[in-house]
């Protein structure tokens, strides 16, 4: 999956709705110049980024197993379709799954745990520690005790 020289990297930015999406939007300037595709759980979010390069997947967590399966299938389809060089996620479960799937096609991956997790990493971030190239916490104290990195925060 090495991209050709002089071409913009293909980025898949994956996040759940609500606060996860708000945080992804704050980071969006990082994707300027790249070929960015957004995937989220809230269809109405397309109003903010345009229908172009926008994908929706079902929201799920570990207590909703059937939706979780649908979420996996949906993200497999999105990842295969976008063929990203890079996957960046601000959580939650869907972001981890996209990163797990993305590793199978050689994508480089970064999981940024929500700033809501001020005292401990989320379950998704914990899982991502063993899979993603980088797992970032937005709290220095959390990063120090978990093996995640602290490199800044959205607020």
């Amino acid at each position, binding site marked *: 999956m090495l991209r050709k020289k002089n071409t913009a990297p293909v980025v898949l930015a994956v996040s759940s709705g609500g606060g996860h*999406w708000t945080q992804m939007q704050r980071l969006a300037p990082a994707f300027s110049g790249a070929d960015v595709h957004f995937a989220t759980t809230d269809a109405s979010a397309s109003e903010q980024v345009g229908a172009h390069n926008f994908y929706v997947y079902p929201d799920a967590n570990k207590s909703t197993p059937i939706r979780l399966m649908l979420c996996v299938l949906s993200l497999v389809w999105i990842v295969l379709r976008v063929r990203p060089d*890079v996957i*960046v996620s601000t959580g939650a479960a869907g972001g981890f799954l996209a990163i797990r799937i993305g590793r199978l096609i050689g994508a480089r991956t970064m999981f940024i745990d929500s700033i*809501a997790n001020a005292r401990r990493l989320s379950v998704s971030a914990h899982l991502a520690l063993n899979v993603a190239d980088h797992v970032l916490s937005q709290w220095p104290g959390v990063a120090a005790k978990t093996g995640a990195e602290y490199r800044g925060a959205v*607020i």
Partner: protein
Amino acid sequence: MIFATVGTQLPFDRLLTNLDSWAARNPNMHVFAQCGLSTAKVPHIKTTPTLSQSAFRHHFASASLIVAHAGMGTILTAAELGKPVILMPRRAALNEHRNDHQSDTAREMAKLSNVMIAEDEAALHAALNTAMSQRLCTQSPKHETHPAQLEGLIDVVRDFVWAVPSKEAPVQFHKGAVST
């Protein structure tokens, strides 16, 4: 107008009923709530289950005060728009969330000048009365973010996006980090 929001994932009846009992005593104040999956009867509040992103921002922007669960979407939007916000953290013991991370979030966010925390009905009513009496409704508090932290994080993500993986050493490092 007071805009209340509890997110869309889980119900939060306690916040809505506590807000409703305040609205009953303050009939002049218009309260509009995005109530998600909550089923509580709240006759003194106008509610809608969900809002589109743009409608959410519209209500947020036109409100003088926000009352909400301690969700980051709400906290970030309040910081961005300079709105006073009263947060009630969801509690796992009351089946309001899967864990108590909202209490952690609330404790950290209480440092922001536009944020007040209310753990229960009495505290919520007190916070609402304080907000009203201070006329927080007419003035926007100072917008508080730390641009250096955000700029730093954006730079890290941008560098990662544009990094060209070298052929000799494919990106494949394992942290082996075990959390306690």
